[in-house]
């Protein structure tokens, strides 16, 4: 039986993982297998972990402001590895004005503070391939 596998990752150098953990827990309760990799991951590490774990979704959280650089980099690395169908989403403290460019770069959706966790679950269920 297929199970949705989600990599929850914190790229970059900010040390705030409360949000990532809350999301990880919500995804677990939705019946997903959540691979949690912890803080301070490089884009290369995230892409390689996504490959080894053969995940359906990569969910990243950034609170440092480095999202315009790091999110697209992860997308490119994952696509370079031949994983074209992985759904990649982002969250954290991300200004509304940055979101269109992130979506352009391949981030399927961006979830900002205040998003009910159920919205993230629903989005994954609706869009995972």
């Amino acid at each position, binding site marked *: *039986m297929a*199970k949705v596998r989600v990599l929850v990752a914190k790229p970059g150098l900010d040390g705030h993982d409360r949000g990532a953990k809350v999301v990880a827990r919500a995804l*677990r309760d939705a019946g997903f*297998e*959540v691979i949690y990799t*912890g803080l301070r991951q490089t884009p290369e590490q995230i892409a390689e972990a996504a490959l*080894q*774990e053969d995940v359906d979704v990569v969910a990243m959280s950034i609170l440092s402001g480095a999202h315009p650089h790091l999110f697209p980099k992860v997308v490119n690395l994952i696509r370079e*590895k031949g994983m074209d169908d992985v759904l990649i989403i982002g969250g954290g403290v991300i200004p509304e004005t940055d979101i269109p460019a992130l979506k352009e770069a391949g981030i399927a959706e961006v979830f900002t503070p205040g998003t009910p966790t159920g919205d993230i679950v629903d989005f994954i269920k609706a869009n995972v391939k």
Partner: protein
Amino acid sequence: MDIVEELLKGNRLALSRAITAIENEYDEAMDIMKKLYPHTGHAFVLGITGPPGAGKSTLTDKLARAYRAQGKTVGIIAIDPTSPFTGGAILGDRIRMNGLTMDEGVFIRSMGTRGSLGGLSHKTADAVKAMDAFGKDIIFVETVGVGQSEVDIVKAADTTMVVLIPGMGDDIQAIKAGILEIGDVFTINKADHDGADKLVREMNMMLDLDGLMTDWRPPIQKVIASQNEGITETIENIEKHFKYISENGILTKRRTERSKNEMLDVLHSNIGSYITNKLVETGKMDEYVEQIKARETDPYTVVSNVMKDMLK
């Protein structure tokens, strides 16, 4: 992508996809296993088990680095529990192994137990075979945090290491049956905590009383995994054990037993699902269930008749 062909060529994505097919029991999984099987049997399989929080993942990380320094390639299968209520899981063992992610000689895969209660998942053994066929020299199988009786790891591993930590109970715990019986090698992690020496004494007492003891007395090594202390000695213990079982025919015996279990597992699950599917297709399933519920017959009679019918 031809998964088997690519996997045998060393394509990591193919290995990853093969494990997914195995784990999800996709239709092609059986075919993949058939084709990979001739390429298996070369890897050394090291089981790592112990209670939650004992430091199994941290220890795996340190041991894997030490084996990499010897030039050996490493596969790691790390298992964490699946929720019995939602089917979801948090697989968090990679957190302790992030330093290995970018090493091309290491492949780490996290698995949920998905309903299995023996400390592994049902598909762990097949995932080990996929890594074996891929060419890994050493495959670590890290169980879920175990209590007392989750001992499936002995069936999957060549050498089983039990990781304990001080402060988890008195010496009566040490004479109980279960995981303490399966250790080929013992590691007392967090040995800088109070009670480490006491635990070593209790473990030694347990081994002194072991009436079934062979020539191999499981060594007990104090370790502080987070500080890399005791890792070299632990590797030596593992290697001594592997040498011992290789030279005494025990490895051959264990692997023969494993081959038998593999066949029986496939036999039970295939026959079970064959019969179940037939019963569902023909509508007999509901019929029998109703009859059993009404006490017109019983499960034993039904199964005897079904077997007579279907397995002629």
